[in-house]
């Protein structure tokens, strides 16, 4: 590999670094453009042979098919475009609720692995190992066909845990009734949370200044908590499902078994991964931090809350981003269960119209923007917990 030529002869073109750099790039670009070009030409010719053209005007046509469950108003008279939008909103409904639920499960399971209770640690381990080593799609089928259809077996209605009903048509849960007082209560709870946050901050400042918590803020916080609890239990006008005389379930909110299965599957699947992230995050905080916090006189729970968790969050949040993106993408498996998300409605549309290419592109754009948004939000969140250098 030793170059033979002396330094005064010009470097041959093929060994000139600049030439190689530009040559290689041009070559790669040419190949990529060439292959893409051939593919597009082929596609155009093939589509032409089928007598079709790439265009999106079909979105304005009447869809004619039904969508099993929808938040937005929808009927078969609406357009394909609206049907897809309704499917998209169904997707959002799944993943947004999923984010909250899976974060809860994940954090709980992650902290449980530090429990000093042997049984909890074991059960947690079994949960994580089973969920992570079996396919999500299989788990979804299990939730849907075995758990939820198993529970709703028979033709009648079944009562679970006193306040929940299940039948072939869905799961009936207690839900706040849609009245003025409910909304007032919800707004007040938010206000209280806001106030509580500031009192908590004040309390922290007091601790930093005087080295011990003062009694008043703590008392105030307890009071606020009690009021909020009262508002939540009574003020929300909970409507409980019950069985009427003619065997119909009245009241509460109905969620379809498909939605329930998707939500449980996604929540517990992603939760197992988040649990591992949380565990690793907490482990990443050095033992010295614990010891320092304890030697300052903080109790275990306070040390966890005030010292360890804020530091662990710096490790946890960047990894959470990936899990949320996974959850969003995995929600596309709703197609297999029959929950009408964007993929399922798109599939039906593609079947009725034969517009495969257009639909696949639409899916791609939808998920790409969705994931971009998740990344943006999570990056913001990440910035806010990172160490602010002075």
């Amino acid at each position, binding site marked *: 590999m030793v170059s033979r030529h002396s330094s005064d002869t010009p470097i041959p073109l093929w060994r000139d670094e600049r030439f190689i750099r530009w040559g290689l790039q041009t070559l790669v670009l040419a190949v990529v453009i060439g292959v893409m070009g051939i593919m597009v030409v082929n596609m155009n010719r093939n589509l032409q042979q089928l007598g079709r053209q790439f265009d999106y005007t079909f979105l304005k046509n009447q869809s004619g098919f*039904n969508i*099993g469950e929808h938040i937005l108003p929808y009927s078969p008279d609406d357009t394909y475009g609206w049907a897809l939008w309704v499917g998209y909103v169904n997707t959002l409904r799944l993943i947004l609720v999923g984010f909250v639920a899976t974060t809860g499960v994940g954090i709980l399971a992650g902290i449980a692995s530090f429990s000093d209770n042997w049984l909890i640690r074991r059960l947690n381990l079994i949960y994580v190992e089973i969920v992570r080593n079996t396919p999500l799609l299989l788990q979804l089928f299990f939730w849907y066909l075995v758990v939820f259809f198993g529970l709703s077996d028979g033709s009648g209605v079944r009562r679970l845990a006193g306040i929940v009903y299940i039948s072939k048509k869905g799961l009936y849960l207690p839900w706040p009734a849609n009245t003025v007082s409910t909304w007032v209560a919800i707004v007040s709870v938010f206000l209280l949370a806001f106030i509580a946050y500031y009192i908590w901050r004040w309390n922290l400042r007091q601790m930093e200044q005087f080295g011990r918590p003062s009694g008043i803020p703590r008392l105030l916080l307890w009071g606020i908590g009690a009021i909020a609890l009262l508002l939540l239990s009574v003020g929300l006008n909970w409507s409980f499902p019950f069985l009427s005389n003619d065997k119909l379930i009245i009241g509460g909110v109905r969620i379809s078994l498909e939605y329930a299965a998707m939500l449980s599957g996604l929540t517990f699947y992603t939760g197992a991964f988040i649990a591992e992230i949380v565990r690793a995050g907490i482990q990443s905080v050095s033992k010295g931090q614990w010891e320092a916090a304890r030697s300052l006189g903080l109790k275990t729970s306070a040390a966890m809350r005030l010292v360890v968790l804020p530091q662990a969050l710096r490790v946890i949040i960047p990894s959470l981003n990936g899990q949320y993106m996974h959850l969003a993408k995995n929600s596309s498996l709703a197609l297999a269960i029959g929950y009408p998300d964007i993929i399922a409605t798109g599939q039906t549309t593609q079947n009725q119209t034969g517009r495969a290419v257009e639909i696949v592109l639409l899916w791609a754009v939808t998920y790409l923007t969705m994931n971009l948004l998740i990344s943006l939000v999570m990056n913001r969140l990440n910035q806010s917990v990172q160490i602010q250098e002075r």
Partner: protein
Amino acid sequence: MRKVGLIAALLSLSIAACVTNNPTPTSTSGESPAAGIPDSSRLAAIKGRGKLICGVEGTIPGFSFVDPSGKYSGLDVDVCRAVAAAIFNTATDIDSKIEYRNLDSTARFPALQNGEVDMLSRNTTWTLSRDSSGGNGLEFGPTTFFDGQGVLVSKASGIKDFAGLNGKSICVETGTTTELNLASRAKQNNITVNEVKFQDSNAAAAAYAEGRCEAFTSDRSQLAAKRTGLAKPDDHILLDDVLSKEPLGPVTINNDSALFDVVRWVTYGLFQAEEFGITQANVSTKLKDANPDVQNFLGTQGDLGKQLGLSNDFLVQSIQAVGNYGEIFERNVGTNSKLKIDRGLNKLWTNGGLIYSPPFR
């Protein structure tokens, strides 16, 4: 690194082996080129390949059903066989010339459009939007089974008619006309039904059998077939309501008239054979029939087959392979079969039905 290169080369070779480029026979090759077949037609590709790839449903007894040993049977399957016999000009061991591909309702059109199958013979309803080039861009052959959409319910459910489905959940196969008909009939009757959608008819039927839905809607013939597979067929009834017209027949791709004409005229040939009284058993003796129409039909005279790019006696092979339409019907779905479907609309036009073939001239 060299080894990696070697592995990569071997792998790409084995992948390359899986990409099949169907050689399109050029007209310069010595064998008599079929007059009407352009190179671009899939008919040329089929002949070159030596196999017809036929998309079927595969799970509906009487129409297309594959038994555990892999043998196919049914009315739709016999249409595939008739077409293959005509194209390859042979009636013996015709299944060796056909590759059946089971397709569910969502997979069937993409499979046809991207060339995975040459034709569909798979309970596919003829509709404008599927036929038009602005829609699915398909070409529909003659209807081989005039059907209507029905609803299967259990006797225990107490549902008596379509309006009784209000508020009930109903299993339906997605991507089908039945799905659309159900939506529009429900609207017409001002009822709401809870549709539970499935990708293939099997899953839908299984879900109904398990009691996940209170009713199951599909083509009446298909419901009759699926009912035979239930644990207690007599506990289930077909509602009298007919929700739609469902003309079912073979399908090919748009813009390939050479292949489409073959499928169309072979199918018509099966109808015409029944009208002429030509059966699987007597076709060889009918070759000497004095009737000039029959002679034209069977290719002992004239060049009807040549005009399609086939051999002249193509219908002899088809009939020898599967018999005429009446025989196919009786064998697979007729009153003596398990399905016990009355011929009804599917009688010959001479007997008051809709089975009618244009003249073979």
